[in-house]
């Protein structure tokens, strides 16, 4: 099926090599989802020649880990409502229940 072949003319190659916008997009998409085979090849070619995007990739992976860690820390560190608020809440609930 020659029609589906990855066409790597010098012109396309140049576009791939210069397109950091697309490369960073693919890096993000790959991190949490799937990218196509064609996209994988494009990204490989781009990263091979682009040190800035390699730096970006390293950093963004780390940032994702830290964001997840931050979220799980905040989900696991129990916060306490103040007693006045709780008492008011309790009264409201009792009131509602007594209405019925």
């Amino acid at each position, binding site marked *: 099926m020659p029609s589906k072949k990855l066409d790597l003319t010098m012109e396309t190659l140049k576009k791939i090599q210069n*397109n950091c916008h697309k490369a960073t997009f693919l890096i993000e998409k790959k991190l949490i989802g799937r990218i196509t085979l064609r996209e994988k090849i494009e990204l490989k070619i781009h990263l091979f020649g682009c040190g800035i995007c390699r730096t970006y990739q390293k950093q*963004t992976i780390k940032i994702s880990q*830290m964001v997840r860690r931050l979220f799980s820390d905040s989900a696991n560190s129990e916060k*306490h409502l103040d007693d006045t608020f709780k008492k008011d*809440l309790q009264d409201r609930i009792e009131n509602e229940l007594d209405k019925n």
Partner: protein
Amino acid sequence: MTTKIHQLEPRHWVAAHADYLFTYAIARINDEEQAKDLVQETFLAALQKVAKFEGKSAERTWLTAILKYKIIDLYRKKSSGLAINVDVQQAEQEQSDFFEPEYGHWNLERAPQSFGIDDHDPVVNKEFNSILQKCMQKLPALWLSVFTMKHMDDETTDVICSELKVTPSNFWVIIHRAKLNLRACLQKNWI
């Protein structure tokens, strides 16, 4: 075999679940006052639904589901209307010069450079976490909601798209932009 039928005891909700729900809310919206309101609204809404409770899930699970629905509702409210256009526009403007317009190459002045994050593990660094939090709060409300649902609860793309009413292609654009802004903010504010 008997399946356990769970019971509701509304008079014990505050003592048993209020702090848990408060923690759950605050982790996802990072605003104490709003989190308090949500806990209260959750209990009041739950009281209206007591009759419909079938006992299939534990009381806490059931209450948390109601709260979760309210949080997503709040995400939706925060990111609709006029405010969204302003904050999204601002954020987009900030990154408009990240890349050269012609081929999409990095604008060298805005390109990623190696900073503290590269050499040591900032996971343990408290100071870094507070910078990270500040940078996240700078994201437009919609972007932050998408980002939180993905990284906090690992919601699927389909769920996030349908709950927040964004198209799948817009979802990927948001994820990309949020990360670009976040990374740039971290590099800029790293001490």
